[in-house]
Every structure is written in C-alpha cells, then in structure tokens.
C-alpha cells in the first residue's frame, strides 16, 4: 500500500472484472466454468429453438399421432427422424424440449425480474424509512413467506383456472405463472435488501452523505443500492433456479402450461402416465434437462455465494 505507483493507466472494466477476486476465483474453479458453459449452451440453444428445432411442436399440421412414443435413437425401434424419440402425441421430443426449455427459462427469468423489482423497491423503502412502515411491510413479508410460494401459487392458479375455465386459462397461463411466482416471492428480495440497507445505513459513509446534505433518494440509489448488490446477485441465481422448479411443479400439477404448449414440467407430467408402459423417455429426457438446468444455476449461485460472501438474511 505504501508503494503506490503513480501514473498507472486506468484498466478497462473487463480487465478489472477479470483480475478481480471474482474473476480470479472463477478461473480457478472448474465447476463454475463448466456450469456457466452448460448454462450458456442451454440458454442459447433454447433461445434459438425456432432455428434449431426440426419440427414446430405448436403446429398441429406437423404432428402425426401415428408417430407417438417412438423411443430415442439409441434404443431399438427408433425412427431416425426423431433424434430423442417422440411423446404421446407424436411430437418430436428434441423440438418440444427446445421450445419447452425456452418457456421454462423465460418464465423463470421474468418471474425473478418481477420479484426483484418488487422486492428491491419494498426492501429499500422499508430499510431506509424504518419505523411503522418497516414493521408493517416486514410483518407482511413474514406472513407471505410462511405460506410458501408453492401453496400460494397452487391456490391462486387453481382458483383462476376454475374461474376462467381451462381454455382461457391455458391461453394466458404464461402470464399467470409469471405473475404468481413473481408476486409470491418478493419477500425473499425485500428481506435481503432490507437487511443490507439496515447494515449499510449504520455505516458512517451514509451519515457522511447526510451531513453533506444529500437527499434520501440520492443516498438510497447512489450510495446504498450499489453496496447491496452482492447479496442481490447471490439470491437472484437461487431465485431463478427456484422459479424454474416452481413453474415445473405447477405445470406438473396441471396448473401451469397446457400440454399443447408444454414447458419442461408439463412434458414430464404428460410422460408420467406412460412410465409404467415402458415409455420412460418422455419423462426422463425433459427431466434430465430440467435438473441439469437448475443444477448449473445452483452451482453458479453457490460459487457466487462463496466469492461474494454476503451476509444473507437468515430466519
């Protein structure tokens, strides 16, 4: 520290990141590298689904029920047209999985974006303003959390489905899913953000900003928020993984994406009926994709937690 050399060029943002603690630990961590690679492959492949998929699973003209339940290539009785086999309705499994993964990821990311928006705003306000508003918001968060997202989502979706009827529900299922997963999980963000805001607020640089006469919004956005980012990053990864699982679980129960527009969860669900008759692949292959996707996100989250080591809200 005492030997600070002067006149050193300011390094670029990327090289700062690459040479930072985070960059270093990433380069040294094969699990993180492989996880990120797999995640990127899945994300890119599913984004490019319309290009990569040989069939369009949403187009009834391309589906022939006579093609149903062909096993994957490496099993006897396969049809070389269908690389991973076909499902019970005769859809090409490879194409359906690509589209399904796209849906699952989309719902997961959008739901987390909604959670983050709600939770961060509420958490910032609760933490910074404090007092009665804070205790009220946090009480609400506690109660919301104690009811478990899945429970809230199941009841909400069940009632909506019953109210609107299956057809209308299926049409708007994607929005319902994003809304319910997004709204039900805001306390995760709100509590974490609030806890960091409270911790940061005690630090003297906030007092210093107040003595310098800065307004509350400037302090919240310019000073507190940038210092609350690491826990937000860490829980975001975990939340994406959880949102994908929640979506899959809801679709599995028939309360999410309809079989005509299947996400990974609904694909697994439709395959479940055929597991006893030996057509394991309709369940197993989407299942493996789902687990791998969630696993790599969780592994990245774990790595990030180790590196950033934020104080997360407990209990």
């Amino acid at each position: 520290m005492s030997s600070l050399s002067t006149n050193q060029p300011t390094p670029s943002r990327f090289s700062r990141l690459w040479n930072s603690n985070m960059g270093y630990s990433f380069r040294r961590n094969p699990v993180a590298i492989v996880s990120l690679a797999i995640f990127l492959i899945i994300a890119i492949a599913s984004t490019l689904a319309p290009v990569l998929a040989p069939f369009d699973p949403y187009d009834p003209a391309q589906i022939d029920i006579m093609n149903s339940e062909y096993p994957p290539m490496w099993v006897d009785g396969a049809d070389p047209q269908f690389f991973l086999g076909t499902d019970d309705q005769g859809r090409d499994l490879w194409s359906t999985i690509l589209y399904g993964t796209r849906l699952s990821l989309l719902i997961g990311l959008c739901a987390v974006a909604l959670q983050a928006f709600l939770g961060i705003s509420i958490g910032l306000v609760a933490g910074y303003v404090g007092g009665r508003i804070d205790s009220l918001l946090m009480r609400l968060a506690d109660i919301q959390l104690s009811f478990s997202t899945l429970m809230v989502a199941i009841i909400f979706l069940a009632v909506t489905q019953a109210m609107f009827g299956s057809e209308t529900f299926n049409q708007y299922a994607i929005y319902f899913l994003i809304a319910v997963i997004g709204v039900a999980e805001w306390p995760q963000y709100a509590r974490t953000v609030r806890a960091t805001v409270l911790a940061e607020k005690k630090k003297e640089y906030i007092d210093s900003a107040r003595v310098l006469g800065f307004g509350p919004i400037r302090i919240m956005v310019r000073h507190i928020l940038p210092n609350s980012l690491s826990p937000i990053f860490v829980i975001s990864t975990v939340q994406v993984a959880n949102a994908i699982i929640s979506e899959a679980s809801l679709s599995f129960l028939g309360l999410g994406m309809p079989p005509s527009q299947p996400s990974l969860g609904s694909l697994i669900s439709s395959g479940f009926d055929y597991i006893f008759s030996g057509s394991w692949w309709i369940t197993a292959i989407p299942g493996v994709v789902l687990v791998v996707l969630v696993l790599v996100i969780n592994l990245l989250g774990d790595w990030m937690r180790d590196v950033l080591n934020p104080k997360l809200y407990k209990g």
Partner: protein
Amino acid sequence: MLAYLVKRVFQAIAVMFAISLIGFAIQDNLGDPLRELVGQSVSEEVRQQLRDELGLNDSFMTQYIRFLGNVLQGDLGTSYFFKEPALDVILKKLPATLELVAGATLIIIGLSVPLGVYTAIKPNSVLSRIIMGLSIVGISIPVFLTAILMIFVFSVELGWFPSYGRGDVVHVFGYWETNFATADGWVHIMLPSVALASIMLPLFVRLIRAEMMEVLQSEYVKYARAKGIRPYRIYFVHALKNTLLPVITVGGVQIGTMVAYTILTETVFQWPGMGFMFLEAVNRVDTPLIVAYLIVVGFIFVVTNTIVDLIYGLVNPTVNLARMGA
C-alpha cells in the same frame, strides 16, 4: 414474555381473519350453489326465491359475517362431490397427510443434524464433499421428479416398494388411521416420505453446515479451545446450540413449504391425503372443499408458526435482552 405472547396470538388471529376473507371471496365468486342444489330445470322465479332464502342476495358484509359465524362453528359448507360436510371430508384425509409430513420430518431431523454438523466439522473430507455435492443435486431436483424417479427405480424396476396408496392401515381413533402399525403400512409410507424429505433435507444440511461453520469461527469457540475443552464438547455443547437457534426459525417457515409439497408427492403416489383430495376438488370445481382446504391449511400454518416463534423465544436466553435494548 407476556407482550410477546399476546402479540403473536393477536397476529395469528389477524392472519386467520385475512384467510377467511380470501376463502369467502373465492366461495362468493366461484361456482353457483343453486346449480349444485337444484340443477338446470328450475324456473327463474323459484331460483330467486331460493336465493332469498339462502341469503345469496344479502350484502357482501352480511354474507361474510354469516360465513365467518359458520366457520367458527366448524361449518365449512358441504362438498358438492362427496355430499358431506367439507370439514369432515378434510379431517378424514388429514391423518394421511400428517403421517406423511411426520415421516418426512423424522427423516429430515434425523439426518440433517448429523450430516450438517459433520460437513461443518470436516469441511475438506471426501465424505463431506460427497454430501455437499449430493445436497446441491438434491435441491436441484423437483420433488415430483424425485418421486417419479423413485417409483421408476424402486417400484417398476426393482419392485421393492409399492407405487401408490397407503396399504394396510390401522384405525386409531376418530378419523385417525395409521400407517405405522403394520409392516405393509411402513412399506407404503417409505417412498412418499423420502420423496417429500428429498428437497428439504439438503436445504437443512446446507443451512446447518453454514450456521455451524460461522459459529465455529466465533470468539467464544476459540476461547473454549483455549480453555482446553474437548472438541466434541465444543461441537455439541458450545456450537450446536448456537447453530440450531436460527435453524428453528427457518424450520418453522419450511413446515409451510412442506405442506405445499405434499400436494406434489400425494399426486405422484396417489396418497389419499388432503393434497391429493385438493387437486381432485380443483378439477371438479368443488368450491366448498377448496375453501375448506384453504382454511384448514392456513390454520395449520398459523399454529405451527406461532408455536415455533414461541419455542424460539423460550430456547434463546438472549431474546429477552434483545427486547430490553440493553
């Protein structure tokens, strides 16, 4: 302590009140009780008359207060499908679900503490790495997929365990029939409990490990070492108690999650519990049953959470201090 108790109970009542309001709103908007009562063939005049008699034309508040009054007396309406009081239908299914939750809880408590403590004490051992690796795989597999996988492996391929139902149950009292009295019952409850535990167990192992590792870094653990206390006493007397305090609160929240997951496991294993019944009720648009389920499950959540909070207050010697502000 008194203020704390009053506050908690007060809050629990407020939450139950909110749940009943939601329940009533659902009942009010979902399904037409007349259709269930008289069918389509009755004239509009008779319908209006029936509506008046049933109080369906009263104001929202009047209807809600009547609903609340009925709920407090244990009358949650009559199931359209079973033609029985909804509460009875649920109470018949409740023991199956509670036994499933109990089985899973036993597995979780029995395994998470030793595994969490072990991985915290020996973070670099091969076994710890395997446990931590499995735990992250564990939280990445949705419960229903674990359940399907287990059915496929243990029922379809190996044929060791049955794939559905409760098997032989023994009547205990009231509506209570237990799985834990016969060998067949044990065999049937095995897979569903393990499946239900599969997502919570890794979560708890990781939580206990993280807490324990933090506690092991604390000054008072260093001090205990400096006093020459044996490692096992440090781990299990000094560290574990401090570790479990935050785990208790998280555990309370997770009970709610577990009840939600019973819907998934019960569906896969066709376990005749509340969750399975609820999903069927949803498909049949059996509104009174849906509302009754909501209220019963809400009640279970609120009661367990309140109890967990009170236990935390009793176990933690510093809780009083925190409130004294000293």
